[in-house]
């Protein structure tokens, strides 16, 4: 256990000292929310409503993009070899990949919480009557994204391939899920396709929390995320083979 925490500490150190990742998880998300909010504020009666919409949707996009944090943490070129040196130690394979998932989750969650702490009072945006539920629901989503990134690394063995596939997939799912603009008025087929996108379920759950103060969707979404994370972690155990990295 001590070994695991040693590795976790190192991973967290690598993440918090990476300005590109910090920027990607804060500045990029901040810019997206602010700019999209400003630009579309003309479509709304109150400019605040544009920010309300894009804070939630872009936050979800940002949380899912946290998968790229995990791929970077695991197999970024400069730290790939020292990360894999751990294979030879008594720490074991589980420490190698699960510490990346946990470290990425903690890092992304911290960054996004800081972002909300800054933007909510600034933009007068609400997270619902009980913001704690909103913040709590973010945790399983962040963890799922981190697990996804680690899993893809175990599957594809390189950060580049994993990040490319993930960024494309996440962008597509977000477009289908109505993150950037609503697809509801674009025909029956698209509306139907949209309903299959997990991003849509996330949007529904988070909007229900902040606009209707309803936790009805939060519980199934959280549960679904946890199950999916477990499956992904099991997938890592299946696909991570030390001999592939020798």
């Amino acid at each position, binding site marked *: 256990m*001590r*070994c695991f925490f*040693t*590795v976790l500490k*190192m991973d967290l*150190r*690598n993440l918090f*000292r990476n300005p590109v990742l910090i920027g990607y998880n804060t500045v990029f998300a901040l810019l997206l929310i602010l700019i999209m909010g400003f630009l579309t504020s003309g479509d709304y009666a109150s400019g605040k409503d544009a920010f309300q919409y894009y804070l939630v949707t872009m936050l979800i996009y940002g949380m899912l993009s946290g998968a790229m944090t995990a791929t970077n943490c695991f197999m970024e070129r*400069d*730290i790939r*070899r*020292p990360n*894999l*040196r*751990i*294979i*030879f*130690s*008594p*720490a*074991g394979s589980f420490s190698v990949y699960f510490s990346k998932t946990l470290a990425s989750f903690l890092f992304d969650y911290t960054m996004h919480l800081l972002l909300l702490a800054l933007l909510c009072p600034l933009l007068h945006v609400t997270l619902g009557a009980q913001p704690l539920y909103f913040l709590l629901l973010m945790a399983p989503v962040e963890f799922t994204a981190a697990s996804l990134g680690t899993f893809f690394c175990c599957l594809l063995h390189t950060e580049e391939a994993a990040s490319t596939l993930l960024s494309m997939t996440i962008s597509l799912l977000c477009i289908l899920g109505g993150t950037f603009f609503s697809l509801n008025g674009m025909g029956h087929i698209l509306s139907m396709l949209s309903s299959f996108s997990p991003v849509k379920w996330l949007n529904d759950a988070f909007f229900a929390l902040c606009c209707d103060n309803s936790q009805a969707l939060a519980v199934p979404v959280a549960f679904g995320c946890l199950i999916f994370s477990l499956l992904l972690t099991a997938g890592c155990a299946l696909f991570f083979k*030390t*001999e592939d990295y*020798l």
Partner: protein
Amino acid sequence: MEKLLEVTHLSKKFKDTSVLNDISFDVLRGEILCFLGPNGAGKSTTIHILTAALKKDEGNILFRQKPITQHLSAYKQCLGIVPQELALYEELSAEQNLRFFASLYGLHGKKLSQAVTYALDFAGLSDRAHDKVGTFSGGMKRRLNIACAIAHRPELVIMDEPTVGIDPQSRNYILDSIRKLRSEGMTILYTTHYMEEVEAISTRILIMDHGSIIAEGTNESLKEDIENEKRYLIEVEENGKIPLEEFYSIEGVKSVEIIENTLSITSLKSVENLDRIISLFSVYHEKIKNMTTENASLETVFLKLTGRKLRD
């Protein structure tokens, strides 16, 4: 001497290619056992199986008379691995790297600090402890790479070609350090394709080629057969003028090989026949471009065993 590691009938295949063919050997406590062989001989594959990073197809590996699979974590605790490629966090300092890797072997608190100090002294990097590894020279990185493996004072240190790509000064430093590790009680398993390193530090040698161990013994015992021999390498302008029988008619000449425009003549050391060999060239008007003399070496041993040079 006590057997620390016993390897029996080890085999490994990658797809249909056999990379290890039923090899068996022991590692004795306190020795420096060198694996010598060309690239592709199977040295690194053997190392990776011993470190449990790669699964074997057949065979047994016992550590202190117990199968390593039965107590893998405890076995790994006793190992120190120096990988062939540098595996260091370049953005961190030498001390931070050592702290991290030593912690993985259960060290913490005061013991960890002592281990880090010991490792920095060993690597000669005490004055650069707080500098980022990215600012180090290649030789310094190699030394740190080794230091990260021995900080926790393992029983068995496995080094996979640790001196690749460094200057002679750093190499000598590393070889001296390895002798020092042995004097401190560690057992070293060392792979290389540089015979000079093997001759400098080994207590015992295993020569590998094409996945098999083709010779085993000490430096002296391996060269015994050929110690009374010397080899003349004579480069000529145009080969084929002198019939080979002429050389064999000279007393002491054991074998003659032609490698492109170079004649490799093996002769007994006890017989002074160089003048007669040279005179043949004069008789047949064969112009000598260059000539060197070689005494018995591991290179010669390998050549005798395989018909190829170590670096072919």
